[in-house]
């Protein structure tokens, strides 16, 4: 007689539910998910209950193909769980273990159930392995896709965050550039600056490149374009923070920026104040200092 592993498995999971759930919860409690403090035990138990119920129903609907329609709602639940794991910063191991730690409890239950019937036991174990492995892999796929989404979004956020336009005074803006100016980031930088020039009705924009490690022809071209665009919006640019070694390199490259440039942001600010008709003067020595 041929033993149907799927049937054996489904029967075991249905009949021994309480014991399997207890063992699964215990295994998860021993794992690092809870210790990391990223999830509360109550929340984990709710997930365990929901997932187990759906596994039981999926198996009862027949078949071991975790990609089949009978497993659809289980797949959705697991995907939701992995997605939230990815966002909460779980490790891949912890995430995969959520499903894989169900293996042992089910194997044990099969042993209890099929005591003595080696053929049926082997069929049941094989069936359980097949389903849980596939579910585990699906979980990891969603986890990784979500991680990538998170990383991609962070990259975008950094691109925007690291290019702040600072208002130094009425009509005077500063754009401190830090890091590598690849084309994607430069687009954001330029847009932010032009928008700020419009919003602030700025006359002068200081582009500070102290934090830019390498100025090659591509960076130079981005700077030239930004300066030209700012000019069209009615603002003059001053470039500051050109370090001596960068200045020498630019000369050898043959790059000319054709803008006023100053060694430091402070020097550039002084020029900007002067050009907009302002003057910084030292106060008469204040009272405390005279004491």
């Amino acid at each position: 007689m041929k033993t149907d592993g799927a049937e054996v498995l489904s029967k075991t999971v249905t009949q021994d539910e309480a014991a399997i759930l207890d063992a699964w919860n215990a295994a998860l409690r021993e794992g690092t998910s809870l210790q990391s403090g990223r999830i509360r035990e109550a929340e984990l138990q709710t997930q365990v209950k929901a997932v187990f119920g759906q596994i039981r129903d999926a198996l009862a609907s027949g078949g071991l193909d975790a990609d089949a329609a009978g497993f659809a709602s289980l797949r959705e639940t697991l995907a939701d769980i992995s997605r939230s794991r990815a966002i909460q910063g779980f490790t891949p191991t912890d995430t995969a273990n959520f499903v894989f730690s169900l293996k042992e409890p089910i194997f044990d239950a099969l042993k209890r159930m099929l005591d003595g019937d080696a053929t049926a036991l082997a069929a049941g174990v094989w069936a359980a392995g097949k389903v849980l492995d596939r579910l585990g892999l699906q979980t990891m796929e969603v986890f990784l896709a979500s991680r990538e989404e998170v990383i991609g979004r962070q990259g975008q956020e950094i691109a925007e965050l690291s290019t702040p336009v600072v208002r130094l005074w009425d009509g005077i803006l500063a754009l401190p550039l830090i890091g590598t100016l690849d084309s994607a980031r430069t687009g954001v930088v330029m847009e932010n600056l032009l928008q700020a020039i419009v919003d602030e009705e700025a006359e002068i924009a200081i582009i500070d490149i102290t934090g830019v490690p390498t100025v090659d022809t591509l960076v130079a071209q981005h700077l030239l374009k930004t300066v030209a665009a700012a000019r069209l919006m009615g603002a003059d640019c001053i470039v500051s923070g050109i370090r001596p070694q960068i200045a020498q390199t630019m000369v050898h490259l043959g790059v000319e920026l054709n803008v006023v440039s100053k060694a430091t942001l402070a020097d550039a600010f002084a020029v900007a104040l002067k050009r907009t008709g302002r003057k910084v003067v030292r106060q008469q020595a204040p009272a405390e200092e005279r004491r």
Partner: protein
Amino acid sequence: MTVTKTETLPVRSGDDVVRVRQRVRALAVEIGLGLVDQTKIITAASELARNTLDYGGGGDVCMEIVQAAMRKGLRLTFEDHGPGIADIEQAMTDHYTSGGGLGLGLGGAKRLSNEFHIESTPGSGTRVTIARWK
């Protein structure tokens, strides 16, 4: 002249160009180049890496630390199997560009290096070698 260290990096994406610059910086520091010379060779490498990527369709860079008599140097060879350059003299001319650049990369890389060598065969690829000595 002996080569004391060799490593090869791919040049297939914008991120690779950043990595090439970082590695060149590390090697330049290793042979004791000063800040100005470091910046020069890093910038030259950045130009050639981007040409390899943009015009050569991607390739590799071989980085070598070389020792000759009492001097140490950094030698970089950029190689691609792209379309090649039909007229090298024209490509080397300042402000000549076929791709909307400034047209200063090749000439600039030459001026930033102590040694510069370019060979290219239309239809089979381009190889540019530069070196900077301490």
